[in-house]
């Protein structure tokens, strides 16, 4: 599938701010499952963009606006071709023994331990008891974890904030994609399965998927022999060609789409608009 994505983030600061420094994780990744063919960012007020590749291989841009300003708008426009199947095979071959023998394992420390938003709290252990003990077939088990979160959590945009931890989402049994991803990552990591956070987009299409109106987030588990497999606990889906991957990290903190520091009052209004559309020409090719 080929998509165009418009991701607009706008801030309004009633009291004016200055020296605002912003870091962006908005550029879709190019890897063996997708290819980003176009990426443009417009920032208003005008700012010079600088770029680097972070340690996860994410393409990062950053900029600074020093003079006083009362609004900031960031429009990221990208075109991405996704290569995954629409109905990917279940990771049935993944086993605990293959994982334990995997030579990559020692390097995956960051994806097997706690991070800012992913804590192995007592609540995680309680949540654990509702699930089967991970059998040797851990790929299937990961699917069960995803389904269990999907079934027992309410999708509720009021329940949590972007700074919520796994503990809060678990106690309310509610949250948004970011919380579901964090909970699943916490369960997987505490079971010894390497797991990482993915931010990106999901194409709504005909179906009623959740999380399409803004950035989406899901979880990837390292499951040899399949490698990294994406699970979306928000929709109980295996990641397919409707998903566009932007950035990977330990948790939200590593990959938040727009992060910044400025001088001025904390009071700010923020709005985010995401539109994911199938490119017309690609649609025709499919027919």
């Amino acid at each position, binding site marked *: 599938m080929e998509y165009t994505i418009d991701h607009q983030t706008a801030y309004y600061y009633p009291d004016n701010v200055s*020296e605002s*420094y912003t*870091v962006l994780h908005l550029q879709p990744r190019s890897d063996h499952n997708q290819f980003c063919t176009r990426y443009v960012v417009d920032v208003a007020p005008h700012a*010079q963009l*600088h770029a*680097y590749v972070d*340690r996860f291989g994410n393409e990062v841009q*950053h900029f*600074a606006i*020093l003079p006083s300003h009362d609004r900031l708008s960031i429009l990221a426009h990208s075109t991405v071709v996704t290569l995954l199947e629409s109905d990917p095979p279940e990771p049935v071959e993944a086993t605990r023994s293959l994982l334990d023998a995997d030579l990559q394992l*020692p*390097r995956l*420390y*960051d994806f097997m*331990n706690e991070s800012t938003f992913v804590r192995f709290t007592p609540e995680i252990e309680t949540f654990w008891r509702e699930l089967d003990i991970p059998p040797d077939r851990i790929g299937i088990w990961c699917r069960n974890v995803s389904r269990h979160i999907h079934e027992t959590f309410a999708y509720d945009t009021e329940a949590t904030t972007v700074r919520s931890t796994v503990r809060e989402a678990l106690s309310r049994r509610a949250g948004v994609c970011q919380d579901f991803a964090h909970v699943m990552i916490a369960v997987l990591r505490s079971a010894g399965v390497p797991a990482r956070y993915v931010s990106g987009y999901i194409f709504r299409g005909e179906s009623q998927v959740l999380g399409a109106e803004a950035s989406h987030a899901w979880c990837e588990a390292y499951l040899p022999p399949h490698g990294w497999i994406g699970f979306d606990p928000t929709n109980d889906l295996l990641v397919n060609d409707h998903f566009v991957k932007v950035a990977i990290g330990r948790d939200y903190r590593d990959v938040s789409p727009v*992060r*910044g*520091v400025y001088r001025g009052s904390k009071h700010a209004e923020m709005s985010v608009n995401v539109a994911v559309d199938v490119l017309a020409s690609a649609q025709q090719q499919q027919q």
Partner: protein
Amino acid sequence: MLDIQPATAALRHYDELYEAGGLPRPHYAPLAATLDWIGRDEIMARVQAINTALLLRGVTFTVYADSAGTERVFPFDVIPRIITPDEWGRLERGIRQRVRALNAFLHDVYHSERILREGHIPRELVYSSKNYNREMIDVDVPRDVYIHVSGIDLIRDERGEFLVLEDNCRTPSGISYVLENRDVLKRGLPDLFRDYAVCPVDDYPARLLDVLRYVAPTGSAQPNVVLLTPGIYNSAYFEHTLLARRMGVELVEPRDLIVVENIVYVKTTQGLERVDVIYRRIDDDYLDPLYFNPDSTLGVTGLMNAYRAGNVALANAIGSGVADDKAIYRFVPEMIRFYLDEEPILRNVPTFDCTDPAQLQHVLANLDQLVVKNTNASGGYGMLMGPYATAEERERYAETVAACPRDFIAQPVVQLSSSPTLVDGRMVARRVDLRPFALFGRSIEVPPAALTRVALRDGSLVVNSSQGGGSKDTWVLQA
């Protein structure tokens, strides 16, 4: 005058002044004679004058977590500690070797991880270090120098051999005491120097400035160096002002700097002036709220971006603290063999690894004979001196260690050497350590400007200023 009281356990440790037979070592004999000649009353009068001078100069330090006024004068003992050229030569070689290996280790853990891949140091130990800074992965630092300034803490064991107690690779302090101690002693008791050719210490600031200029990003013919301090409430603020003044560089606080399009500037009355090198005396965590502690109101926003882009040099490099993590300390001899293919010149103190269950058990069962240290603390904070602690203190400490073994190491109690010290008008033997500083620029140098810290309490083995320690002028004799 030299009727020195033997320290409590005189035979179980090395004495800097007396040989085993009770005679003064040759290099101390002229000093002893001079002290006798000056006489007790005169010396006490001079001590008074010296202390007043130190107070007026503001040679103070801050004790954190002390409710009774935090600013204190750093006690100075006028009896110098003397190091022979032979001893110093060996220390110099050993420290150069050690710092070279530590620097290679830092470059390695943030790049190819060779020492981890080949299994010489457990990956987990590095990744779990609080000072392993993930923002530094794959970042190249100017001239590949990470540890521009280090302080290597040494103690003498029972046989007089110098051992490395710990490495300080972040922002080691203490050099201001070295400079001030020499200054006031030379003015207050010039006679002491009469029979000695003592290596000067006052070129340290110039040598430090050379190092800082050397690491300026390529292209700056006249590099602009600044010293970045957290401000007047920092315990080492006195040192920051002194070094900035003696190097002739600007002393700045975070709010004086600004990053514009990935370049660091200092705000001056004439506008913005580009900064090439920052000798920073602020911890990593507080350097840039955009990348590190987001709640920090200190810091220079965007500094990490400028650093990553290669537009500014920081001394020491961000992330260098992983090299002085006390849990990694025991691997330094291994680093020396691995990176340099040499045998370590200076030995370590034997260290128990609490992450190893068998060793942890041994540590917990023998707390009354061990020193236990927090792997990320410094300045003597958070340590347990087993033999001197109460049973209750040990019990409480054992719980903390068992709950988080990665955060602790344990070492046998090493009887530090003792050195003659003036306490309440009497000469007594008190325990000392030694902190030489290494400067890493074009090459690694160890200026003969070392800090001797002395435990002023009888029998105490803790020399940290925060724990009731003082300092001495340290004489490295010319060859």
